[in-house]
């Protein structure tokens, strides 16, 4: 027996009980509490618990607006959780700059995140000064419109294949007493719907000028005027929604009370929970059927720095668990989102998810507005849009001007 083997054997006997005895509790905060979301989180917890550690769930309902202050207070207060969800993008930028976040580069290199995470822009969003600070778990794309087949049948029109056909079908829908477009009252929903319309109707080049290059002239231009004109119509069509939460609005589509909703792919989880089948009960139109793209927003886990070395170790285990093939598949099937690695088998994916994967494979990818604008700018833009959406007296021209003024000062 040579010495290396002896050492290895010794290390193994020591290390094994060591790892088992120190099952570490790791508190994970997130805001995934709707039906489909909770089922997806359960998959993550199951996978992490299987490593001998324990996932302590810290769910805070009420979307990121409620949960984020709590997360930030906890981190700056010096009592950080083990891991926390953020939308990847610029939300955690400053926490990283201040050295409050754990550097994951080691795990990332060992497990070749650079090679497996696709598109690579996802990892770039986690990278700061060459170091990796977050583990992306899914790709969420806002670029979908969900249609209720039953609603269109009731109105006696064919299920539209793009925004313009939808527009043509609206009078028939209204006659049948169906709300053409469901948009919940929470302000991020009208902002998101608007962003989707911007890509579809102003065209990808104009969108890039405004959302990436922050070109105020483009935001004032005729291409964007089209978006605002369409938003004015959508405002009219959605005025009878009268619900607050996004999944209540989705539920209107599921039950056929509303014909359509512009919402990200997470809405799919709700259709699944309700037992509906893509293609049969509902139809999905990526990019409103006009410009078929996927925007790569999504969720990522960040790992605040811990004092306890055991916790840090557990954090690394969690980071690697989140990106394992099995977890990626199990989680994303439940969540309705697309896995971040390209080498997993998604045979069980449904119609809509396959459409998304196709578009992704073709490389029709755009960044999410969370990645291009700071939270501050996002918030200001959201103000303009939500106010426009709820105030019929604001003309599209006025709103366009306000919007462009903010783009001019954007950071």
């Amino acid at each position, binding site marked *: 027996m040579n010495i290396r083997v002896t050492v290895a054997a010794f290390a193994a006997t020591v290390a094994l009980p060591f790892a088992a005895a120190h099952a570490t509790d790791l*508190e994970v*905060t*997130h805001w*995934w*509490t*709707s*039906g489909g979301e*909770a089922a997806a*989180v*359960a998959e993550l*917890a199951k996978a992490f618990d299987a490593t001998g550690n324990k*996932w*302590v*769930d*810290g*769910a*805070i*309902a*009420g979307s990121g607006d*409620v949960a984020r*202050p*709590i997360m930030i*207070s*906890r981190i*700056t*207060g*010096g*009592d950080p*959780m083990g891991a926390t969800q953020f939308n990847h993008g610029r939300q955690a930028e400053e926490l990283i700059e201040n050295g409050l976040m754990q550097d994951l580069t080691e795990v990332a290199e060992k497990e070749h995140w650079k090679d497996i995470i696709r598109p690579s822009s996802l990892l770039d969003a986690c990278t700061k000064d060459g170091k990796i600070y977050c583990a992306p778990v899914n790709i969420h794309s806002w670029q979908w419109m969900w249609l209720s087949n039953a609603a269109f049948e009731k109105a006696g029109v064919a299920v539209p294949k793009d925004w313009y056909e939808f527009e043509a079908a609206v009078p028939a829908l209204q006659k049948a007493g169906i709300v053409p477009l469901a948009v919940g009252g929470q302000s991020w929903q009208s902002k998101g719907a608007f962003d989707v319309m911007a890509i579809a109707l102003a065209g990808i080049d104009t969108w890039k000028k405004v959302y990436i290059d922050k070109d105020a002239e483009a935001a004032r231009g005729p291409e964007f005027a089209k978006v605002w004109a369409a938003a004015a119509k959508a405002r009219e069509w959605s005025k009878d929604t009268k619900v607050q*939460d996004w*999944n*209540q609005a989705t*539920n209107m589509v*599921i039950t056929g009370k509303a014909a359509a909703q512009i919402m990200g792919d997470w809405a799919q989880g*709700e259709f699944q*929970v*309700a037992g509906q089948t893509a293609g049969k009960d509902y139809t999905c139109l990526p990019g409103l059927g006009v410009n078929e793209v996927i925007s790569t927003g999504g969720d990522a886990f960040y790992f605040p720095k811990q004092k306890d070395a055991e916790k840090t170790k557990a954090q690394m285990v969690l980071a690697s668990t989140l990106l394992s093939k099995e977890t990626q598949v199990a989680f994303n099937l439940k969540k309705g989102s697309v896995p971040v690695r390209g080498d997993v088998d998604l045979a069980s994916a449904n119609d809509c998810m396959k459409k998304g994967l196709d578009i992704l494979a073709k490389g029709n990818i755009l960044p999410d507005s969370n990645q291009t604008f700071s939270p501050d700018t996002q918030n200001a833009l959201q103000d303009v849009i939500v106010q426009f959406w709820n105030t019929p007296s604001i003309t599209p021209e006025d709103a366009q001007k306000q919007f462009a003024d903010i783009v001019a000062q954007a950071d």
Partner: protein
Amino acid sequence: MADTLRIEGAVTPEGPHGRKPRRALSRRNIMIYGVLLLAAFYYILPLYVMVVTSLKGMPEIRLGNIFSPPVEITFEPWVKAWSEACTGLNCDGLSRGFWNSVLITVPSVLISIAVASINGYALANWRFKGSDVFFTILIVGAFIPYQVMLYPMVIILRELGIYGTLAGLIVVHTVFGMPILTLLFRNYFTSLPEELFKAARVDGAGFWGIYLHIMLPMAVPIMVVAMILQVTGIWNDFLFGVVFTRPDYYPMTVQLNNIVNSVQGVKEYNVNMAATILTGAVPLAVYFFSGRYFVRGIAAGAVKG
């Protein structure tokens, strides 16, 4: 019986003032009871809606109107709210947070009242140079929105090394309860006969002696008021409960928020309402049982300031 009578009589220092009611159906009485009943209708309506809704099944809620009594009474929503409703992975409903709420409320109420009563006593009987300045700052502090103080508070607790602990949360509740409570105690102690204090001083009693042996026993009515205010405030607190603790200590309101805000497809209004009543049950019980002392205490404390 004699006991109840005595308490009835002692409800107020003076008793009601209106004229003795003569005939049951005088115009005056119709008007008084009419207004009172009308107001009572407005106050009771939401409770009625909550209770009725919590006893209905979802299909009935979707079809019927919210004011109609349940056709088929079900306790399912109550069971679900208490022990089954999910937030994230934890599907044990409100029961999860109940003891945490108790654990937070009891020490916070006791400590905040102890501190505030000493403040009030010192401000009423042992004024020193600057004491009014501190008190004024405190009263102004009552008007500062909690959101503004969130960040400084996080920093202060971090520097004290108690951020994220139960002790930290108790400090927060003590600090933010202090302005109103101190005002109440100060007014109360000021209203007590000055001779009591002077006589004790002549007998050689000091600051703590007078507080423990004379003032504290006399302060029971105002203690009840302070207790009611604090139990309500702390039990219902959501913001501090989540910001200054960790999930092991999350109070019931966090679960309530999670149940109410995490919708699984359709909003389960019946479960929401049951959860609402269950969460409010403790302060409600405190009110039902001590409402009369409440008025009596305020009468003693706030009136003669």
